[in-house]
């Protein structure tokens, strides 16, 4: 029981990180049909922005410093996402899919090496560690920091869900993912809404990176690589292009990974995650919540 509860908590945390990144993968795929392989690196950049801001505050960072660092990561990540789309992807939107996919891999290398050059190749210890106070629940320990991470993730995802389903701009995003030209005939500035999508997706990944940095205590310029692939897996499990799917996929992957680790050993963790990816692709390529998109006449 105790172990079950501890793994459950673990799964919720990892699942939240995956889900927050998977959302951006899914939104960008939905709107311009690009698998943005640089997306995981925004998680890494978010962690480093948080690191830089917190270091600036010095050792005695209070809650205020953490909040400032969080919003700095969010904002910087979002703006970087806009910049990447503008510079690297927009000129290629009408080129073959493969061209832009390769460009995404290039962007990923630029981000990783850029951060390595600026911060060095070794692991960095986060200036602020999360407090370990908490309480016992079914024999397991649940810290206040863990609760905060989960709540914050749920809050961000709920806000995004409401934005996409209720606001006019959210509806415009969904319209673009169906038909760019028809959307522009509604008087909707399609390129500006694509920018907005990149901003939102990238800032969520960066926020997740900042939280992960504090949670795990150390960061590196390569931390976005495997997490990015996992988030991609989560997006596919849920149904790529679907926002609720990305959230569900993140959670499912978190659960599978946590319990898979216990049953099979942690050295099998990644094998496990990517086998699931292959299984889903073979058995239900549209994912759990994805729809069979019927082609227009």
């Amino acid at each position, binding site marked *: 029981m105790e172990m079950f509860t501890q793994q459950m908590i673990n799964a919720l945390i990892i699942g939240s990180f995956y889900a927050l990144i998977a959302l951006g993968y899914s939104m960008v795929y939905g709107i311009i049909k690009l698998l943005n392989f640089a997306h995981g690196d925004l998680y890494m950049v978010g962690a480093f922005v948080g690191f830089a801001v917190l270091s600036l505050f010095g050792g005695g960072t209070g809650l205020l410093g953490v909040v400032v660092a969080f919003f700095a990561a969010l904002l910087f990540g979002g703006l970087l996402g806009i910049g990447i789309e503008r510079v690297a992807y927009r000129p290629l939107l009408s080129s073959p899919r493969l061209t832009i996919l390769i460009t995404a891999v290039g962007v990923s290398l630029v981000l990783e090496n850029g951060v390595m050059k600026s911060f060095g190749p070794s692991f960095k210890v986060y200036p602020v560690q999360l407090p370990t106070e908490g309480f016992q629940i079914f024999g397991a320990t649940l810290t206040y920091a863990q609760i905060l991470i989960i709540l914050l993730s749920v809050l961000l995802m709920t806000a995004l869900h409401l934005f996409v389903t209720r606001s*006019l701009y959210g509806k415009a995003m969904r*319209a673009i993912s169906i038909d760019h030209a028809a959307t522009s005939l509604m*008087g909707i*500035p399609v390129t500006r809404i694509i920018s907005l999508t990149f901003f939102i997706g990238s800032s969520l990944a960066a926020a997740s990176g900042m939280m992960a940095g504090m949670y795990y205590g150390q960061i590196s310029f390569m931390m976005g690589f495997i997490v990015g692939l996992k988030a991609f897996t989560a997006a596919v499990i849920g149904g790529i292009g679907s926002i609720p799917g990305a959230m569900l996929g993140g959670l499912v992957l978190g659960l599978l990974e946590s319990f898979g680790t216990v049953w099979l050993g942690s050295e099998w963790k990644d094998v496990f995650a990517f086998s699931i990816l292959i299984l889903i692709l073979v058995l239900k390529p549209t994912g759990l919540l994805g729809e069979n998109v019927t082609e227009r006449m």
Partner: protein
Amino acid sequence: MSQILELRDVDAFYGQVHALRGVSLRVEEGEIAALLGSNGAGKSTTLKTISGLVRAKGGSIRFLGEEITRLDPHRIVELGIVHVPEGRRVFGALTVLENLELGGFTKRKDPAFTKRTLERVMHLFPRLNERAKQRAGTLSGGEQQMLAMGRALMSDPKLLMLDEPSMGLAPIIVKEIFKIVRQINAEGIPVLLVEQNAKAALKLAHQGYVLETGQITLQNRADLLSQDEKIVKAYLAN
């Protein structure tokens, strides 16, 4: 009568394909202009060039006295030209109501207008009202055409361009659609109507143009065109 829209010597290309060769036409205040021609003549390209989906390579397009030749599509909608494309292109996964809301995007700062216009559209197309919460993809072809037209009205158009609204619809539905086009026009909105169904279009229109392989080959008052021997032979005989 004052001019709403004027095309002068407009050229357009798809890669090497020279789709429009010096097209000139005008739409006057309050009138319906019909653009006729067989498949592949360049009718849809003409509308796409006006709405900015295809960039004109030469010539000029003026709307209400303003040069719009190089504007982006969304700017052209803001000025008041709304293009209902061939095949309707409604957003199938969104509801009927969401489709209409998106049609009103340019009026988003004026909720009172949007509310009023939504009521007007629902009144004009009662079937959309019944199906407001339904996904647009579940509508019949005729209903989708109504949705596409209703969506266009949401942005308060000063010129409505319809590309083959009758395509693929049963004759009784076509009649209904054309009746509504007449009604919209009677409320003061000029219409540029593209049709293969020349007979019906000329009955509705004030002015007619015939397009052949990217060139305007005939233009006249619609009632005179429908008596023109060449037209009767090429498009009206069956």
